């Protein structure tokens, strides 16, 4: 839609954001949480990310100041999904700079809606699916290899399995948000995200089962005691985690059980 840069006339109308401006916002968005604080959450990173857009759209210092202050107000989102909000903000700021007087109020309303929506989608997709299951898969694959080159290859593959969708979504969210504006809010590809999450989970679970088989075999070969201790301590840690629900207490209990097992093994 707005892919080409138009000339700016004397009354400051028909200014267009270019792909280069968006790329500049994209790079800054990797630091969107750099000054996370309890009063305005990620607003500083959000405002800083939009500086290239602000400089492009407004030339009057009063307009620049007003725009910057608008985006330094409270905002929160999942850090990757925030790119949708950045894109929509760029779209509405562009409309405002070109004379649309309703854009400002639309933006304020929309940012309020986006706080909950983008947070929930991003948390479910990345923090609860893609991230843990990529890491599980990474550990599983590492148990299968021993050559330094293969290890490096597994690490690079795991890094890409996570970061290709991550970086793609940051860019796509920004571009889609800018091109489609507020209408994208009612049209987030939630079903696609769910399917992607399910694929990562399935691959991660297969990897986890494979990992368990390899680990039991390797540890059992190292010492027969491990073949008994490992399942018992695993069960202990699951029970402790379910019933105590405190990570540090769970770790302490399992650690004490391991030391007790070592002591018993010594005395036998």
């Amino acid at each position, binding site marked *: 839609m707005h892919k080409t840069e138009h000339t700016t006339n004397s009354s400051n109308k028909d200014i267009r954001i270019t792909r280069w401006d968006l790329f500049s916002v994209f790079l800054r968005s990797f630091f969107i949480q750099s*000054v996370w*604080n309890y009063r305005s959450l990620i607003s500083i990173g959000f405002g800083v990310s939009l500086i290239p857009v602000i400089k492009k759209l407004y030339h009057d210092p009063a307009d*620049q100041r007003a725009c910057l*202050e608008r985006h330094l107000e409270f905002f929160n989102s999942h850090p*990757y999904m925030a790119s949708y909000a950045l894109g929509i903000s760029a779209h509405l700021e562009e409309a405002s700079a070109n004379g649309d007087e309703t854009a400002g109020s639309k933006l304020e309303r929309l940012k309020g809606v986006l706080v909950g929506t983008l947070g929930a989608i991003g948390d479910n997709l990345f923090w609860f699916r893609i991230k843990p299951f990529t890491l599980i898969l990474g550990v599983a694959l590492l148990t299968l290899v021993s050559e330094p080159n293969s290890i490096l290859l597994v690490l690079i593959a795991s890094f890409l399995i996570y970061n290709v969708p991550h970086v793609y979504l940051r860019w796509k969210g920004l571009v889609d948000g800018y091109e489609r504006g507020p209408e994208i809010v009612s049209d987030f590809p939630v079903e696609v995200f769910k399917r992607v999450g399910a694929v990562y989970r399935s691959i991660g679970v297969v990897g*986890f089962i494979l990992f368990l088989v390899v680990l039991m075999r390797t540890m059992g070969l190292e*010492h027969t005691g491990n073949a008994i201790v490992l399942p018992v301590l695993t069960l202990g*840690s699951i029970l402790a985690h379910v019933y105590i629900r405190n990570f540090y207490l769970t*770790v302490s209990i399992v650690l004490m059980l391991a030391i007790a097992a070592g002591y018993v093994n010594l005395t036998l």
Partner: protein
Amino acid sequence: MSIFTASFVIGVLALDSTIALQMLLSQPIFGCSILGMVLGDPLLGVEIGMIMQLLWVNVMPVGASTFPEGGVGSMVTCAIVIISPIVGSENLVFAYAFVAGISVSALASQITVLDRKLNNSILDMTLEAAEKLNFRRILVLDIMGGLFYAGLIAVLVAIVLSISQWLLPQLQAQLPAETEMILRFVKPAVWAMGIGLTAHLIWNTYKNRV
């Protein structure tokens, strides 16, 4: 020198946890591998990273929640094992490094909270700079926020590594020789904890609890 290098690398990688990039570089399998390469033992780095990783897969850095900084803790475990000044007490070194790493994960989470509180002051300074339309100052404040956190983590790590360098030879000298045998199941126990927590996470995802 190793302590300085390890502290610096861990401080920088800690930024990836919530402050910058968030590309998994601070996760144990990546962070410990990088640290291993820097400290001269990449394979040991990968091994420690694998052992520690599953402990932290179900830690979610969601919003304003306080969560253990497992990546930082694991990298401390890794650094202690690699630069350990003692030989012949592998189980003792690993058990000590694990406890130190777990403790650091809790301390580092408090540093995150402290940093976020201090960032309230940076917000005030940023708003002042916005009023004066000083873009350069806003950018500097933004960068400072991140660097301050990295500095705090690096100092914490340097203190823990320095104590470890002093304490490990003392422990080896004071503890009876049987300690190695008694601590032999600590490494399998860390695997077991990771497997247990991961199994619980998988169960919850199928029950749609997360």
